[in-house]
């Protein structure tokens, strides 16, 4: 063998041992990697095959804390929600009345007049009695309308320099309500007039808020809807939690029953071998119960042998205790000196 052959052999041995320049160069050069879509597909298939879901870390600890943490989360969310709602209600007072609030106000103003009108049309005799009350209501309506108008004015003047038109419009229903009561015997005329008037006043109320305020109202409406959804979700979570709590309570009840059963069993065992329980160590008790089992199976000779062994192993074990466990003919023979 030439030197060159020997060198080649040595290199080949190095190669086999994973210690060659060639292997290192090859590892460096070969950089082919699997395409991502293949990886995804194969891993998904593997997971599907074992029916694996994203792992939920259900340790006993997390299970124990699941309900309290969920309840706390629900509470925090509810409190947050209440604060948010309060905040938004507060904002509503100072921001411009949107078309909706304008309409609600008009309804408040219109509603009594409308009802009275209908009653009076049905029974004109009541009209006189209602007259004074209607006048008072009209005054109050005036006050409501004034308040609303003041609010609207404040916001309207902030939003635009236009004169506060809605004031006159908002006052109309109150004056009209009083006039309507006076003209009660003419239902036909009023029947046509009142709706028109209400319609007008609503239109005025709806037109009054400036564009900025309308945008704000829309925004608030959107938020209100979102909050509604959140409340619905929370309600659902609460229901789930309730059902989980119920099942946990049932588990607890079952465990309690088991515990009671075990306690009863233990008590029964204690009554069977009270002395042994009290006087003996665990090993002694276990041995004695074995002997007792053997004796019960009718293997008296075997039981005696066992008892002799027991006596040898535990010579100081009180004989009085054995009396409660075994019949006399079994132990006296062994324990009589």
């Amino acid at each position, binding site marked *: 063998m030439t030197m060159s052959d020997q060198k080649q052999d040595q*290199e*080949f041995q190095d*190669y086999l041992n994973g210690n060659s320049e060639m292997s290192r160069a090859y590892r460096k050069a070969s950089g082919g990697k699997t395409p991502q879509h293949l990886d995804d597909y194969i891993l998904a*298939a593997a997971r599907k095959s*074992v029916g694996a879901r994203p792992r939920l870390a259900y340790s006993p600890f997390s299970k124990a804390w699941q309900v309290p943490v969920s309840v706390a989360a629900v509470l925090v969310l509810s409190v947050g929600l209440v604060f948010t709602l309060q905040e938004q209600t507060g904002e509503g007072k100072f921001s411009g009345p949107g078309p909706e609030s304008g309409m609600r106000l008009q309804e408040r103003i219109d509603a009594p007049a409308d009802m009275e009108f209908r009653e009076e049309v049905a029974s004109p005799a009541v009209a006189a009695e209602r007259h004074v009350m209607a006048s008072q209501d009209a005054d109050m309506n005036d006050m409501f309308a004034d308040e609303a108008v003041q609010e609207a004015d404040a916001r309207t003047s902030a939003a635009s320099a236009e004169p506060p038109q809605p004031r006159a419009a908002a006052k109309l229903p109150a004056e009209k309500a009083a006039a309507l009561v006076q003209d009660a015997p003419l239902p036909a005329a009023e029947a046509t007039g009142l709706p028109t008037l209400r319609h007008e006043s609503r239109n005025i109320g709806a037109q009054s808020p400036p564009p900025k305020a309308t945008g704000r109202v829309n925004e608030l409406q959107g938020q209100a809807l979102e909050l509604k959804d959140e409340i619905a979700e929370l309600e659902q979570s609460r229901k789930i939690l309730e059902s989980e709590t119920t099942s946990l309570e049932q588990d607890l009840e079952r465990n309690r029953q088991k515990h009671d059963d075990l306690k009863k069993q233990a008590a029964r065992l204690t009554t069977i071998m009270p002395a042994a329980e009290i006087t003996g160590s665990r090993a002694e008790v276990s041995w004695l119960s074995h002997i007792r089992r053997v004796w019960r199976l009718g293997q008296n000779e075997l039981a005696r042998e066992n008892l002799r062994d027991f006596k040898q192993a535990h010579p100081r074990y009180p004989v009085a205790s054995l009396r409660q466990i075994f019949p006399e003919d079994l132990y006296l023979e062994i324990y009589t000196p």
Partner: protein
Amino acid sequence: MEEQISDEDLMLLYREGDAHAFEKLYLRNKDALYRFMLSLCGNESITEELFQDVWLKLVNARQRYQVTASFRTYLFQIARNRVIDHYRSSTRNPQAGAFSNGDVIAELPADRHSRPDIQAETNQAMQSLLQAVDALPLEQREAFLLKEEAGLSVQEIANLTGVNSETAKSRLRYAFKKIRGEMVNDHE
């Protein structure tokens, strides 16, 4: 330092339904297997198809998995069989050669290193090395790849390819000689 769990244990865990074990196993072995198959097939789309088949076969056979050999031997055996099956049933490549153990397989073109992305990454010497590997006769190439990609011993290569260990060693020796010759020529 945490001791690394073996491939066999990961597969056993997967057999018991642990998908994370499979993920680990897959990430550990996929690239080597892919390169091995690509080198045998020489065609990326066919390789992808066969590569996917191999892993799916493993997934579907997980319940029957027993540790009889190293997992890598098992995996590369499945891959090799799949490549042989493919070319046995394929009439696309008329230049069919034969393994010494009687398995019919195509004399495969090796065009994997003509990919521009790989070309850009590797320098001239590396290109030569890869070309030398691709130029090897199939049996030698296979032995070389099983050694380099799967990290199998001579005996394991012999078992997997169905030849005795002397033959496997001889194939490796020839492969080593040829590649080394190419590398030396390239240096000169």
